């Protein structure tokens, strides 16, 4: 065997992606939640300058990709990025780097700490082989859902359940005015809550002058089975108010079901396995450890008709 020019262990999780040119690769970096320190950013810039093409690409999933890196430089690139704890990401049939919005620390809409969740999932599940296909997770801090949770294999959306202390309410009507969903209306000077319309955004809590509205429950709304690509699917609802500290376990439970049920199916995403096996199977599996949070019933992932191939095309 020829003398090895590079450390092949660096390639294990993927993240080095073949380009068109001979010997050239894209190096995808691991940036969970899309947040990185300015020092790390400066290090990445220096490495890109030294080994790359003179530009980088911001991937759709919040990563920075170094372009035109010669494979002979892999070890040096890994070592120099490591000086600022910057790691290389993954590709292939693995748990990918989770994406997340800015979260609740500075974004006024954020209800949960999505950055913390993304870091935790990245630390504990990143690179786990699924045996079948890629596995994407994202964290949205509120129902605005900028990270698009429903097109991830498991998508989390921050949520709060509002509860009113009627004695503290001054009847100002700001909550009813703030409620975009029509779940609150004023009657006889007091807000009336229609729970069926609430999407857990917490706008009533945020605007309430006297803190009469407060969060009785907080956590994540979870949708499963989404993806984009050639055959898009929209993930559907499996659980509500999953506590932040149960997120890793929840994903692990979904992964275990996928690893088992997709056995022999080849390169098939979770959503298509749910369609094949039936949503009841996954819901039952999740009920074992997450009975307090799973919904009574859901639907299969929703197929998005993308109109190609053209109907009637010869």
């Amino acid at each position, binding site marked *: 065997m020829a003398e090895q020019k590079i450390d092949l262990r660096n390639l294990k999780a993927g993240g080095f992606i073949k380009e068109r040119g001979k010997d050239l690769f894209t190096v995808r970096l691991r940036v969970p939640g899309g947040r990185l320190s300015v020092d790390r950013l400066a290090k990445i810039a220096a490495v890109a300058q030294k080994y790359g093409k003179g530009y980088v690409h911001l991937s759709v999933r919040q990563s920075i990709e170094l372009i035109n890196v010669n494979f002979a430089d892999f070890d040096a690139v890994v070592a120099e990025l490591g000086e600022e704890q910057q790691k290389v990401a993954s590709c292939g049939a693995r748990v990918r780097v989770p994406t997340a919005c800015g979260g609740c620390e500075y974004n006024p809409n954020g209800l949960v700490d999505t950055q913390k969740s993304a870091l935790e999932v990245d630390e504990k599940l990143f690179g786990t082989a699924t045996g079948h296909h890629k596995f994407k997770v994202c964290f949205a801090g509120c129902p605005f859902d900028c990270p698009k949770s429903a097109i991830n294999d498991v998508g989390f959306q921050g949520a709060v359940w509002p509860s009113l202390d009627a004695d503290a309410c*001054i009847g*100002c*009507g*700001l909550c009813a005015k703030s409620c975009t969903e029509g779940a609150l209306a004023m009657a006889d000077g007091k807000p009336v809550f229609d729970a069926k319309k609430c999407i857990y955004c917490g706008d009533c809590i945020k*605007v309430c002058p006297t803190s009469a509205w407060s969060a009785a429950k907080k956590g994540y709304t979870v949708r499963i089975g989404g993806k984009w690509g050639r055959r898009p699917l929209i993930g559907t609802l499996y659980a509500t108010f999953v506590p932040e500290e149960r997120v890793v376990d929840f994903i692990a439970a979904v992964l275990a079901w996928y690893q088992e049920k997709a056995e022999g199916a080849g390169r098939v995403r979770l959503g298509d396995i749910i369609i094949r096996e039936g949503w009841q199977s996954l819901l039952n599996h999740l009920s074992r450890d997450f009975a307090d949070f799973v919904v009574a019933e859901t639907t299969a992932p929703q197929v998005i008709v993308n109109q190609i191939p053209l109907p009637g095309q010869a």
Partner: protein
Amino acid sequence: MQTIDLRGVTCPTNFVMAKLELEDIEAGTTVEFLLDDGEPVKNVPRSLKDDGHKLLGLKEQDGYYTLLLEKGAD
């Protein structure tokens, strides 16, 4: 009582104008803001609450809103 008319001003300019007006007002003073329906009445009260002011009430009249507020301490 001072009335600050923010009608016809869009977000976030209305909020920044409200902040500037409040700079010249003493803490504990009650003022009223006139706000358009839609985004302004949804956003401005919440942002002013975040800044530490006390919201006292909201009234609708002729298609716009009057927000009553007590200036908070700095």
